[in-house]
């Protein structure tokens, strides 16, 4: 009962093939293999990156170790009291910025994602449009808000008879970094809230949890990856931001300003190179750590 091959019908080929067969190859000249094509695609990027990023960074590392202190310049950031104080100052400022931004953005982001009301789209647009303002512009906006001719000064003068001006202090810089970080952190948190499974919250409520308990036990823990990712960005950005500090001020002791003055005013190339490397390593390490914790891609913003 087995082994009988079934008959094979073959219809007239002429119906399907009115013309002669086509040539086997279109362009026999293009003998380039796919492998080499991929390399040709990658080559310009590799060249540009090596010439204008890898080599210069290597040079920066070399210059840092080439001053009167030798490789000890890299330790100066920790051993020299003036540099160490600046480093601590910068880290504290960046930490404060990160915590404040996360708190503000979480409250606003949760609210905006969980409620639908007229004007919501406008509000979101207002909160996110400063996304790509450069640091210099942010600095100027802080001056308009809290500078010598600023709004807060005018209001306090009218109300209390005393003009409050803090734009040029470290608190002004803090406000500037806050201004810079809020839009992008709100965006990240809103995206994370949108992805939350509402079923989890409903389950918690069905088990008797109060609204506060639901936030504390279900919502906030689920947002931790977003906090880590966006917090790392805010921190790294605040560590390295130069434009805002440059506009505001003259007398704020933060790492980027220190590097700038060491380089341009003191012409202390080795120390400024070593400090930049230190700053770069800290910023990169924070982002890499956050990335390994969240598994996502995290990058600082200019």
């Amino acid at each position, binding site marked *: 009962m087995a082994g009988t*091959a079934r008959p094979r019908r073959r219809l007239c080929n002429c119906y399907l093939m*009115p*013309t002669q067969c086509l040539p*086997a*190859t279109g362009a026999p000249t293009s003998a380039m293999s796919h492998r080499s094509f991929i390399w040709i695609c990658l080559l310009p990027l590799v060249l540009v990156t090596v010439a204008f990023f890898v080599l210069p960074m290597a040079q920066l590392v070399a210059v840092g170790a080439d001053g009167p202190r030798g490789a000890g310049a890299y330790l100066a950031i920790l051993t020299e009291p003036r540099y160490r104080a600046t480093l601590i100052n910068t880290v504290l400022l960046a930490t404060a910025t990160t915590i404040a931004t996360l708190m503000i953005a979480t409250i606003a982001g949760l609210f905006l994602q969980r409620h639908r009301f007229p004007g919501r789209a406008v509000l979101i647009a207002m909160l996110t449009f400063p996304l790509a303002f450069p640091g210099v512009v942010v600095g100027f906006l802080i001056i308009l808000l809290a500078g010598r001719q600023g709004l807060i000064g005018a209001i306090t003068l009218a109300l209390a008879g005393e003009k409050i001006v803090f734009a040029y202090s470290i608190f002004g810089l803090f406000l500037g970094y806050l201004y810079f970080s809020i839009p992008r952190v709100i965006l990240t948190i809103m995206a994370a809230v949108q992805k939350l499974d509402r079923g989890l919250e409903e389950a918690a409520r069905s088990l008797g949890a109060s609204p506060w308990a639901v936030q504390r036990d279900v919502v906030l823990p689920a947002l931790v990856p977003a906090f880590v990712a966006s917090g790392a960005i805010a921190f790294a950005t605040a560590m390295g931001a130069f434009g805002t500090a440059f506009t505001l001020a003259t007398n704020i002791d933060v790492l980027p300003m220190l590097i700038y003055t060491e380089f341009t005013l003191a012409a202390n190339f080795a120390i400024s190179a070593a400090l930049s490397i230190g700053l770069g390593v800290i910023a990169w390490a924070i982002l890499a750590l956050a990335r390994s914790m969240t598994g996502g891609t995290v990058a600082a913003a200019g």
Partner: protein
Amino acid sequence: MNAITGHGAAVHIIDCGKTFPDGTQALAPASLDIIAGETLVLLGPSGCGKTTMLRIIAGLETPDAGGRILFDDTDVTAIPIEQRHVGMVFQSYALFPNMTVAENIGYGLKIRGVGKADRAARIAEMVALTNIGGLENRRIDQLSGGQRQRVALARAVAVRPRVLLLDEPLTALDASLRDRLRSELNRLLRSLGITAIYVTHDQAEAMELGDRIVVMRKGAIAQIGTPRDVYFQPQNRFVAEFVGAANIVEGPIAQGRLSLPGGWLALSDAADAAAAVAMIRPETIGLVAEGGASLCGTVESVSFIGDRQRVIVTGAASKPLTIDAPNGINVEIGQRVGLSVASAAVRVLPKED
């Protein structure tokens, strides 16, 4: 390749293996000859190497050193896919979202420098052949799954390939559509007379479409044969169980009889053995009265499945036997029944480790 035999090429696979850079061997070196114009199905569970084999034939993967691919008498091993003149239908269809249906179908012709008028004629022909009239100017994202499948097929066939390669072309569709497209595809492959190599994990697809089936397992060929060969004469337990439903029974063979716990089965031709393994298809077992039957058992369950009923009988063999019986037969749970099996339907399998 000439106009009379169509344009199907014979494909010779010689010692083609594939080891990936991480050291895993996806395919042990294998050789296979595919006759011009036949539809060959590569069948097996996922990870059996069937897709790797297809991609080597296509030119998307290079075989390990020593492996060669011949189209007719031409060695194409070093030729990239774009110059092999194959047609390929991908599991995800790989239709270009930036082109319309007609532009997709005509793309291979455009690449080959076919003039606009000839191209339009050929596209119209393909549209008619695959029943997608009226969709020519649609964007790909406006098509249903079945329509996409047809466009992918039309696009692959439009260039009159020497070999048509199909990588699980129906897997992405739902069951009823899959059945309908399967018979359409069958009609099309037969009428084209093209050499086709078809990869699937679905044995029903393999049975209907294949002139020959290559059953694969763990990167090696388990059996090559016509659908009937593979179904009725499986060469090993894996093929028996993978292709269709099978009852596997074990017992000693003496004097042309296989002894089982509930009696014995007559064999057509078998050497004596202390422990043998045999396969019986469920539809080849007949339910008869207990008296006079050489093999008996007890009905454990009866389930009605539409065109027939599935009866499970215990006690006959060491494991329960599955029997597909006509609906006309009336059996009840707990009833003792006799089983009749034609000697030719009992397939003794070679011993495996």
